């Protein structure tokens, strides 16, 4: 949608296009969130998975979305914000950092506010929450709406600012699983956890990529690029299993435990 906003409307500002993309994602998210009013847990996860395949199909088959591009791949260039052209990786980083900070602050405020408490009540025991007067439909659908908006903006940033072009395979089911794991590993129900989870999933493979040949050199073994790729998967999978066993509440919980212990020693205050 961001792409459509850019291409079809002359001179569309970057932020507006991103927000439009987020709004459309929000509408789609609310639509697919409707099953949540009836099903819960694993069944809800599977029902919302249908969104993945539906969207894949829509973007592949309906040409309007890709502006009738023959290859099905779209790209925008010349991203600029109030005259500041964003083309350097550093500039892209700063732009994404700024947007992320703003959205994270807004999300944190939402979680601390009334709507956040409603979400927590529904999460803990939705029957009891309904009894004390929290409207389940409003709470559940607003959860879907807010998270879909954020993920829509994130997807637009990832596709256009980081990758440069978009194709349906870039948003495949593997990507959806990665996002799910980011939340689970990071810690569900925590904003800080999202950052930890994302760092784990994104940075760890790159770190392994750099680290393994160096370690291999130390012990005199040349590690081929294929072996690095396989090792990434193996180590990554093993770490996920270990984290889920050692700390099911995720990295955020480990971080808060770490903070508590550090306050005892060596940073008492």
């Amino acid at each position, binding site marked *: 949608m961001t792409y459509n906003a850019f*291409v079809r409307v002359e001179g569309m500002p970057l932020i507006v296009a991103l927000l439009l993309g987020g709004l459309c994602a929000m509408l789609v998210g609310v639509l697919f969130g409707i099953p949540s009013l009836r099903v819960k847990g694993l069944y809800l996860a599977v029902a919302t998975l249908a969104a993945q395949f539906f969207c894949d199909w829509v973007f*592949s088959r309906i040409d309007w979305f890709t*502006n009738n591009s*023959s*290859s*099905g*791949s779209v*790209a*925008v*260039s*010349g991203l600029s914000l109030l005259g500041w052209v964003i*083309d*350097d*990786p550093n500039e892209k980083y700063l732009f994404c950092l700024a947007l992320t900070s703003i959205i994270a602050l807004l999300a944190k405020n939402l979680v601390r506010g009334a709507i956040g408490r409603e979400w927590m009540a529904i999460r803990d025991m939705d029957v009891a929450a309904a009894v004390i007067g929290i409207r389940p439909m409003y709470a559940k659908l607003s959860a879907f709406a807010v998270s879909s908006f954020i993920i829509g903006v994130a997807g637009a940033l990832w596709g256009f600012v*980081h*990758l*440069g*072009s978009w*194709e*349906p*395979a*870039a948003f*495949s089911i593997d990507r959806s699983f990665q996002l799910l794991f980011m939340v689970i590993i990071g810690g569900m129900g925590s904003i800080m956890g999202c950052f930890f989870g994302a760092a784990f999933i994104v940075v760890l493979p*790159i*770190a392994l*990529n*750099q*680290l393994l*040949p*160096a*370690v291999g*050199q*130390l012990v005199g073994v040349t590690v*081929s*690029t*294929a072996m*690095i*790729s*396989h090792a990434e998967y193996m180590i990554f999978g093993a770490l996920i299993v270990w984290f889920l066993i050692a700390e099911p509440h995720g990295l955020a919980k480990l971080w808060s435990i770490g903070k508590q212990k550090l306050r005892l020693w060596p940073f008492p205050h």
Partner: protein
Amino acid sequence: MRFKKIALGACLVAVSLATVVTTAPAMAQASGKVQFFPSLTGRTGPVAPNATPFANGYADYMKLVNVRGGINGVMTLVEECETAYATDRGVECYERLKGKHGGATVFQPLSTGITFALTEKVANDKVSLITSGYGRSDSADGGIFKWNFPLIGHYWVAGDVVLQHIAKQEGGWDRLKGKKIAVVYHDSPFGKELLPIVQERAATHGFTLQLLPVPAPGVEQKAVWLQVRQQRPDMVIMQTWGVMTSTAIREAIAVDYPREKMFGTWWSGAEPDLKDIGASAKGYNAVMMQHGAEPQAAVIKEILEKVHAKGQGTGPKDEVGQVLYVRGVVGAMLAVEGARAAQDRFGKGKPVSPEQARWGYENLNLTQTKLDALGFKGVMRPVSTSCSDHMGSSYGRIHTWDGSKFTWSSDWLQADEQIIRPMVKSSAEKYAAEKKWTRRTPQDCQS
């Protein structure tokens, strides 16, 4: 409790090791006179059986260049980065490697998806992309795409050569009227890139197309081939890559579609796709981008003698001379010859910058004598690029699987530039209009 202590201790050791180890190699990196050629590989993932020989061929030819004395004395340096055919990993590899060792000379991503993503970036980063036989077909228009080089072929050339061969077999283009041709393609920018040329030819000559997309990675094709069995098209053209090709052929055998009527494009007809199927795939055809399996070529023999015999071979020895291995060799040769052409202009004996190398790729003039001297006699035809034509050559030929190896089943066929050039130009201009790029000026072409 003890386990936790051991685990904590292990983590601390790993972290300290990491910091020590990552600083050491940074200092050990030599920065002498080298021409850096990054290699984006697909050694894992859905295209591993096919992309691995390419990467091996690329690396081996670069080693051969060093054995022959380098590019006027400048040695080549190859560093691999694994992409597993995923666009985001490809982009990450690109960002990591583009500035190393004095600047990457050229990237060959071997993936249309990664090419689309990198096309956006190379204009800013000023590094060339060679996309021989893949990528954007409209990037042959060098007036718009300054940094993209689909050298010696792109998908519209492949499609046109296949259709010319089919037409010849049937007895002329007019014999195709009323026939039905199915196109089984990978449902991605790679697969869809073939469609414009086949649709153009279908409209001109009156045959109908049955378009059958297969979702990535292409191992689920039963539904598609049941449709083929139902509709019984006269011919099937396949735009597949990696495991999708062998799956398609197996499914075709299962629905008993004659393999003689199946035509793959140049990424869909190599030994890894067919050797496990063997004799049942006899008669399967594929169009080749000039070279095929070339075990007798002079350059292949030289690689075996000077690289593999010394134990320096990158991959297994029996792969040398196979279709995709030779494609890697050809890709490396084009990369090196462009750098050599740039050296001839900007100063021999020292590494060329990425911008100078771009000039080299835009002014490639590989005559048959030069190619024969490099060891490519009978493998390649002359290549000559210019500012407006970043492709340089539009020849292809068809080879057929006879059960255990490939044999040539057609003469050299040239894609019809009368049809392709206008398509390339209009598609490039549409892209430029979207991106607000302007066509390059004649002065820019001279630089």
